């Protein structure tokens, strides 16, 4: 049996090799993706992000167990940064998850960002697609809340979970624009610690402003119903499994909201547009740079910029000029 046939017969090894090929931009991977793309669109995709130390991994493990108990098959994607110096990456998200994998209904893949500026690798969306097409009911995508990766994940997921914990002091205050805004569900983990209630209160205050924005957006939105989703704040103690069932319930509830409000369709359209635009940009840039490298234009322009004989914009336009006169 070839790779595609094994993939279609639910062979996890074939899934894994397909992910490798797609991640590497290999034509065989892209061909397989084309073949199986139509099978996707049924998985529920949850993005989970938050600062390191907030307890995401433990929460992830517990969430996966809860969904398994409820009869879902679960795939986890854990994204970690690639070192820009060495090109290597330490992918340690499987630590303490071992027992989960005694169950064949749980699959986990660790992805390194591989130089993608946003933190999420370019291929991450395609990896999620493969897991969806393979047949997993739930795909949990974990990113670290540094850089822009958490904002990106919200564009690929149906529902985004942001995990916070008390004891980070000004974490909520310091949270840059975008991190808090993207959450559909907030979790204040380590809720047994001092400061948990204060953290919840701070979040609620911050959300008041967000709430006003969302209501305004909902009113301006003529395509879907004028209902908006008020992100719940759930207190949890992931190490003890406290609050995890409630988190799962909220994730599912958000799914119902998306379906009944018409948001699901718009999300799906945005996702398709985002992927297409990203891929076109990358593929075009690659082609242009490859040609410029080959014929020496790139090096020539770099030297000219260094010598201040030209500026970067003019240099870039020059490289484009043979393609777009």
């Amino acid at each position: 049996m070839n790779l595609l046939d094994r993939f279609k017969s639910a062979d996890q090894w074939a899934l894994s090799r397909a992910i490798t090929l797609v991640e590497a931009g290999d034509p065989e991977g892209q061909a397989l993706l084309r073949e199986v793309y139509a099978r996707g669109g049924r998985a529920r995709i949850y993005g989970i992000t938050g600062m390191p130390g907030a307890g995401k991994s433990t929460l992830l493990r517990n969430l996966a167990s809860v969904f398994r108990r409820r009869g879902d098959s679960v795939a986890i994607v854990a994204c970690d940064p690639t070192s820009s110096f060495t090109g290597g990456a330490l992918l340690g998200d499987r630590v303490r998850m071992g027992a989960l994998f005694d169950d064949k209904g749980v699959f986990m893949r660790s992805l390194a960002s591989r130089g993608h500026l946003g933190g999420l690798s370019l291929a991450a969306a395609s990896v999620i697609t493969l897991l969806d097409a393979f047949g997993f009911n739930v795909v949990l995508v974990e990113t670290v809340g540094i850089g822009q990766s958490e904002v990106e994940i919200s564009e690929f997921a149906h529902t985004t979970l942001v995990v916070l914990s008390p004891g980070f002091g000004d974490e909520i205050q310091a949270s840059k624009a975008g991190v808090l805004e993207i959450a559909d569900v907030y979790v204040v983990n380590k809720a047994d610690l001092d400061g948990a209630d204060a953290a919840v209160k701070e979040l609620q205050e911050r959300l008041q402003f967000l709430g006003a924005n969302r209501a305004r957006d909902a009113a301006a939105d003529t395509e879907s119903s004028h209902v908006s989703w008020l992100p719940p704040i759930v207190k949890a103690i992931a190490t003890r499994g406290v609050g995890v069932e409630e988190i799962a319930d909220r994730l599912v509830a958000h799914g119902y909201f998306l379906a009944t409000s018409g948001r699901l369709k718009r999300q799906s359209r945005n996702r398709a547009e985002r992927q297409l635009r990203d891929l076109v940009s990358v593929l075009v840039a690659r082609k242009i740079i490859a040609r410029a490298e080959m014929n020496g234009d790139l090096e020539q322009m770099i030297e000219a910029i260094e010598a201040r004989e030209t500026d970067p914009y003019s240099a870039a336009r020059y490289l484009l000029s043979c393609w777009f006169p």
Partner: protein
Amino acid sequence: MHLGKRILVAKPGLDGHDRGALFVARALVEAGYEVIYTGLHQTAEQIAAAAVHEDVDMIALSIMSGGEISIVERVVAATKETGAGAIPIIVGGVIPKQQRPALQDLGVQRIFGPGATSLEIIDFVRSYLSAHPSAERDWQSS
């Protein structure tokens, strides 16, 4: 292309000493590899599951407290069952000399004792993987 760059560093069994494994993991990351670290107390089946899910090019087992023969036997058997083909295995740790031939018979490609330097390990991994790319591993017939 990033094919041929993923290494699984695993701690099987009851052994609780992870300093060596973490040292090697970090050295491999410095050398440009994507290293999946499993953490402690892995069963052979969990190691095999990790190797499959992560499509690793090589499995590095860290064994400090004995039981190396039965551990390697079980890891080889478990990975064979996954249909991934024969994933190359290296072993590091405290391995008595008289056990080494048996490990080699089981298919272990190289054994690194406590004195091994990170340079030795990286050099081996690099040359082994370029000579035996995982893209050419025979998984079709398994």
